[in-house]
């Protein structure tokens, strides 16, 4: 049962969001979900 909004504020809004969920929701299409490649192909 969710706790009524008037008593508490839920920072996760009822769902467990992992790193890739957060990035996906922002429309980011990072390499493997959360890796930024600095120069083309340098990391890979």
């Amino acid at each position, binding site marked *: *049962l*969710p*706790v009524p909004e*008037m*008593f*508490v*504020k*839920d*920072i*996760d809004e*009822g*769902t*467990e*969001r*992992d*790193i*890739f969920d*957060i*990035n*996906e929701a*922002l429309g*980011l*299409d*990072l*390499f*493997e*979900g*959360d*890796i*930024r*490649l*600095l*120069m083309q192909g*340098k*990391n*890979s």
Partner: protein
Amino acid sequence: IIGDEYRWPHIIPYVLEDSLDLNAKGVILNAFERYRLKTCIDFKPWSGEANYVSVFKGSGCWSSVGNMHVGKQELSIGENCDRIATVQHEFLHALGFWHEQSRSDRDDYVTIVWDRILSGREHNFNIYNDSVSDSLNVPYDYSSVMHYSKTAFQNGTEPTIVTRISDFEDVIGQRMDFSDYDLMKLNRLYNCSSSLSFMDACDFELENICGMIQSSGDTADWQWLSQVLAGPENDHSNMGQCKESGFFMYFNTSSVKEGVTAMLESRILYPKRGFQCLEFYLYNSGSENDQVNIYTRVYTASNPEGVLTLQREIKEIPIGSWQLYYVTLQVTEKFRVAFEGVRGPGSSLGGLSIDDINLSETRCPHHIWRIQNFTQLLGSQNAEIRSPPYYSPKGYAYQIYLNLNSSTNVGIYFHLISGANDDQLQWPCPWQQATMTLLDQNPDIRQRMSNQRSITTDPTMTNDDGSYFWDRPSKVGSVAIFPNGTQFSRGRGYGTSAFITHKRLISREFIKGDDVYILLTVEDISHLNSTAIIPDPVPTSTAIVPTSAAHNACSEVECQNGGVCTVHEDRAECKCPAGEDWWYMGKRCEKRGSTQDTIVIAVASTVTVFAVMLVITLVSVYCTRRKYRKRASSKRAALSLENQHAF
């Protein structure tokens, strides 16, 4: 990632950019503490090193893999990324780690269900062959903090990653802390043999009792036992799960007279940071008046025998159960910790027991909330538990609310409540960071995977009706009643409904002896608002003090080109960014320099010097020739006159 060029130095320079939320800054510093405790990786505020990690609030949570040698290497902790395990995860990327499921042997352990993956996101499940990525002889790790969870990039509700051993299906994707294998890999990659803040852990499983010694100045001794008739029936480390093992130290107070003491001293310890946290479990089966005193014996040149100082008296130890205790120490010289059992008045049928000692150079939690008979609570309906009231060091009263109503998740919330100091406090409550930790009760602090979340009171935050969220509870809160009948006001709670899943809660050693511990720390982090670089914790109790002077000095200085203002001897200075072959300089980092400029300057200087030398040489030659010509012509004139006169 294979390649020494990707490694960082063991002390990584960092900058926490102003764009970061204050809560995120506090969480990042807490994550650094986990690295300092469990690995040889340390962090220091950037002071001009060629390469550093710049943590900022970008869009999302991301990092590069390894040291890219670009000078300022960005790592984003964006909205909703301010969780300690997320920060640990991103920094593991920065240190050179890919995701666990991208290992070359991945398919031996998990199945990727390709038709359940969002279209166009298949590349997130790449594998690296073992010429690119090395798993450092560590087995595949389902419990890695670097593993995706089963729902990663799913296009429906079915899992995209299926573990070949089904028991691990809900294990993958933990965001609590480093796993044992995460640490093994990191410590192998960086050749770690020690850490900055870990000092000692002892579960008394071995007969050498971790090098502890019985003092000679007392009248009784502690015994190494695995069971006592009057209790405890078993030790705390194993809780009786392993037959023929599970030891603890016991002082039999039933066999001695009132006033008799037994002192057990640790081996000699060498502090590095000057502040320590001692943690241990006590069991009392003796008299309610028996007590344990904690001492330090500090060795100095003038006191080679050591000076014994009483640090804490522990009285009213609960009878019949293991109870966790924390003691804060501040020792800067080599020392021992001593546990003194004292036989008190009253009858005793048993004694005092100690187990699972941990000593580290970290900060102790401010409060411990022990929840007993937890399994029963977890199974019951409408299970809502509220902690006793606690006070923060600034004087704010607060309470924690644990919501066990959901069948899948446990929620945790922080409430400000009315307290004795409310008239003297600032409202709405500014920048107090509450850190709530569900303690993994593994005997060794390094192997714990405690679950932690932090929230920070933002004084500008409002409710839907326009009132301030963190205003005085007696003004914006609702009336509540403590179990003893006292009435008080409770503000609205702030926290998460997804603190931990039930499945994870019953894993590890979160519930031990049917007890759960929630560790609480509420600290003022308003100083992190300053742009000043945060100093490392120092021996003084005020660990992070950029001071208002720092803030004021820097408020008048604007550093250009990404420079960071710091305060040195009460003066604001700009630390300018630099890369391998470029740098900014000047009072405000307004000038740019590069190695190319140096080459140009060197060549120009050489050419100029050569030209000047050439001119000087030519002039000298010209003058000398002219002088000798003159002299030669005057000689010839004199010679002809002589001859004329002779004829």
